[in-house]
């Protein structure tokens, strides 16, 4: 299984050892549906909403969320992918991640941006994302949607839409995908 254990850069040869499955694929599906309704409720409609998923953990989740939003609202929600590698503040102390694709094909000025990620942990990825987003204009508002909030914030950042709150200890690792959520540990291969 691909390790997307925390919201840090993917770390080399560390792999994820699953201990318990906390959410099934069906649970995740329901959580996504609920969050989609909450996004519409909060913004009255999705007319002005742009979904931006964070690479790489938020991609599949974002695509699923967009599908559900389109279905419920009957509209086509603009979608983008954002890689925040170049904006990280831990470049000097952790291996620089090999960056992936960023695709944002519309100006975000005056849009309501919903950032989508798999796991919210220290909040540093989100800080980097906020920094990056400013290059695409001045959004009217930025909201945050995560499948799992595992706590341990190091920055004053809180999510607007949460699939599941999961109190964890620092030595645990979380994998959250559209196929389910697992808790475990990470270690050498």
């Amino acid at each position, binding site marked *: 299984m691909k390790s997307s254990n925390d919201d840090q850069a993917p770390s*080399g040869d560390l792999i994820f050892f699953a201990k318990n499955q906390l959410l099934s694929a069906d649970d995740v599906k329901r959580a996504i549906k609920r969050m989609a309704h909450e996004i519409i409720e909060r913004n009255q409609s999705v007319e002005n909403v742009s979904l931006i998923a964070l690479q790489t953990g938020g991609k599949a989740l974002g695509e699923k969320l967009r599908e559900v939003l389109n279905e419920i609202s009957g509209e086509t929600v603009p979608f983008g992918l954002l890689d925040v590698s170049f*904006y990280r503040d831990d470049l000097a102390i952790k291996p620089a991640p*090999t*960056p992936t694709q960023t695709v944002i094909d519309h100006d975000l000025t005056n849009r309501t941006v919903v950032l989508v990620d798999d796991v919210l942990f220290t909040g540093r990825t989100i800080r980097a994302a906020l920094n990056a987003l400013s*290059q695409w204009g001045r959004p009217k508002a930025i909201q945050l949607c995560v499948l799992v909030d595992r706590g341990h914030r190091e920055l004053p950042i809180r999510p607007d839409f949460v699939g599941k709150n999961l109190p964890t200890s620092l030595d645990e690792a979380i994998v959250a995908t559209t196929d389910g959520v697992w808790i475990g540990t990470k270690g050498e291969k």
Partner: protein
Amino acid sequence: MDTIRGGNLLTLNNLSQKGILEVLDTAESFVEVNSRKIKKVPSLNGRVVASLFFEESTRTRLSFETAAKRLSADVISLAVASSSVKKGESLRDTIATIDALGLDAVVLRHLSSGAAEQVSRYVPHVHVLNAGDGLHQHPTQGLLDAFTVRQVLAERQGARGSETGAEFFQGLRVLIVGDIRHSRVARSDIAAYAALGAEIRVAAPGTLLPADFSGWPVSVAENFEESLEWADVVGLLRLQNERGTGSFVPSLGEFTFTYGLTEERQALLRPQTIIMHPGPMNRGVEIDSAVADSAQAVIERQVSNGVPIRMAALYLTVVGATEGDSL
């Protein structure tokens, strides 16, 4: 070496396929950054990059400095012609002086082979990026040439280069033509293409071939025209008059007559064959003007890919701590 992370970029001779692909894939992300309205990311914020060109350059210098600035680094640029080098200051003392100002990386071009490696020993705490040293290496040129080839081939299939890894290079037939003997570009190109799995042939008058090919992963073309039909990629090189090429060929006209890529010879190429030239071109010598401006030539694309490749090289060496350094 499997990566340039946290180190120097002095030569491609010891960089593995994995290490090369890492740079190419990273550069692809920087292509996207360069297509934005605001083309700047904060990765090298607060870092100091010195650009030292002891030899003339247009595109390498400009694209290295542009790359550093787009990564938010501060760039110190030494104008050698008006510096103390002219008073006879040695390379070592010049580097020591600049280093005293606080440096994170040096981009060095020098007329002596091995200068970059030498500087990396003077200032081991500084990341050294070789922008061309004598007849030895020009690593970022080799990387951007491989990057351009992969980009063109991937686009034809509607794919992104990074999705294709080294696939397109397996058995790719690369013909390198011209002044191989004096060319650091040829040496870096050959190292890059060979590591990626291409088949390489060189074509030149005997006098412009190196005296000894042992250890070079290339074959020598017996027939230039036949090799043009064979090639998937034709990489031309500049005749380097400043390195005395003149005395290695009877005349420039004779070189053009035997090895220049004229319009007649272009007609021998298959339509999908890519024509490359690292610049600056001697139009009418190694390449006809009409050939250089034809759709088969990707020369301008090589220049524009220089910035993302150099951003990737700076990003990986300066802030790409190796896995071992972390945690």
